[in-house]
């Protein structure tokens, strides 16, 4: 490992768990880690946040599922995945055997499904945390996006907390497509969230002007990439101001160290790299190394000293 990491304190903390680097993958942008491990060692980042897993296998939505947009992309995957059984049989053992710290992202359509997923994960050894994805925009019914409703958000998080036990950190992923993200954040923290993942994609659409119909088969999709970064930085800033003691995993269009530093200064304790992985599979390592250099240049000896400095 690079010598520099011994003279710089790069650790971050969510709930009871410490991570050696404040760089994570973003859920849905690293599959279950195997593919990215061809490009870097997964133990060289803070943790892999897995693709959101559901109770049962999911085919996801039809194609086309992707449309590139200016400095961004729309996706409409629809949470394709093998379901929790196969995930626990195949993906988790592989990740742990490859020395990856693992945060399992879970997604359910009902409070009870979230509770069942939490019960399944409670008995799994070696996990570093749970991300509760209550904000995927690619569902048929917008009314099912829990993160748009403070009461529903709270119910999900309380249920996961009750079923997962006290030890494993819960990070709740919120949607920026709400009037008041701070109100939602307060509810989920009061319900037992140890941290917040900000932000999920924004609901968007692109239309093919030749075919004169939406480019995505699912019509709408989640917008990600640098195009949404100012929205994400704003969300992190607002939530950190209201909840300064709640660690935030910041994400939304981060592709280099400067982007990551913006999030840290806004109040994130760590950042996730998502869409940037698609264009540059070594982006998490690039962001990590550049972030450390930028922090050192500014006289910081630890990343934690820089958290929320834009508020002073």
């Amino acid at each position, binding site marked *: 490992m690079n010598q520099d990491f011994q003279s710089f304190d790069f650790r971050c903390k969510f709930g009871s768990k410490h991570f050696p680097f404040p760089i994570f993958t973003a859920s849905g942008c690293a599959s279950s880690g195997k593919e990215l491990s061809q490009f870097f060692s997964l133990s060289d980042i803070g943790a892999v946040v897995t693709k959101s897993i559901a109770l049962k*296998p999911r085919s*996801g939505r039809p*194609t086309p599922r992707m449309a590139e947009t200016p400095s961004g992309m729309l996706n409409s*995957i629809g949470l394709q995945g093998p379901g929790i059984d196969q995930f626990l049989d195949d993906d988790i053992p592989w990740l742990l055997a490859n020395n990856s710290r693992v945060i399992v992202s879970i997604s359910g359509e009902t409070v009870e499904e979230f509770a069942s997923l939490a019960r399944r994960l409670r008995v799994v050894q070696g996990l570093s945390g749970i991300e509760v994805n209550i904000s995927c925009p690619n569902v048929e019914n917008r009314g099912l996006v829990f993160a748009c409703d403070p009461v529903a958000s709270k119910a999900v998080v309380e249920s996961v907390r009750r079923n997962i036990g006290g030890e494993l950190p819960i990070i709740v992923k919120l949607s920026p497509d709400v009037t008041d993200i701070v109100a939602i954040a307060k509810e989920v923290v009061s319900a037992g969230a140890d941290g917040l993942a900000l932000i999920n994609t924004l609901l968007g659409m692109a239309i093919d002007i030749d075919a004169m119909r939406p480019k995505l*088969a699912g019509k709408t999709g989640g917008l990600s990439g*640098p195009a949404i970064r100012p929205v994400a930085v704003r969300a992190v800033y607002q939530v950190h101001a209201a909840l300064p003691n709640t660690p935030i995993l910041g994400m939304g269009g981060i592709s280099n160290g400067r982007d990551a530093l913006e999030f840290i200064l806004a109040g994130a304790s760590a950042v996730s790299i998502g869409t940037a992985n698609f264009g540059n599979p070594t982006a998490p390592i690039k962001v990590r190394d550049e972030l450390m250099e930028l922090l050192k240049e500014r006289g910081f000896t630890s990343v934690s000293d820089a958290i929320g400095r834009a508020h002073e």
Partner: protein
Amino acid sequence: MVFAAGEMAASARPGNFVAISVGGTNSSMILRRAFAVYRASDRGQYGGTIELVVAPHGQGSKWLTSLQIHDRVNMVGPLGTYFGIPSEPVSALLVGGGYGSAPLFGLAEVLKERGCRVDMVLGASVAGKIYAPLEGKRSVNSLTVTTEDGSAGVKGRVTDVLPSLIEKNASEIIYSCGPMGMLAAVEEVSKTHHTMHQCAVEESMACGIGICMTCVLPVKDENGVIKMTRSCIDGPVMDGERVMWGSSRTIPEGTWGAL
């Protein structure tokens, strides 16, 4: 376009693709562009080279074709599956549509070296969209061209000439690449004539390395279960009879995990 690609060239096989960053460092185009390898050579004046056929249709490919000699690009590859080469010398029929025919010429060379008979059909809407470089023609026993407007070769579609070619040459395997509609039609002909069929599929792709799940299509696995399968790492070359053709913009009934 020819790229000095070093060791990447030695491991590239017909059917593989590469993914290239476009637009320079401050580009608003954040995703790589995928190109099938036209030809790879592991030794030459510039070491290993990879050749691609780039049609400047979109913003990304226009940027790429505007580069000057000695400019550098960021390329990941070789990616994806490649065409299976029979161990015995067989009679092979290669079918290409439009510019999608690029990987067939490298494939023809490999098949020829194995002692296979190689017949090729190239089709497009108009003559100008047929990609058939002179050097590519050397490796084939016969070349048939079809155009929908009759501006070159036989007027019609590739599938109009396939049955007679299969019978005449006793073709045992069909290799195809081009638009999905053409691949589906080729599979129909292949099924009727009981030939094997390997095709290189096209789906829009964000990452090319298996992490984004955008480039999927419904494909039967070895147990007959239909799964949304990634065309970047479980393809682009797939077994034609396993692909659930005609299911564009839908999830076929019975797909694993369908809601």
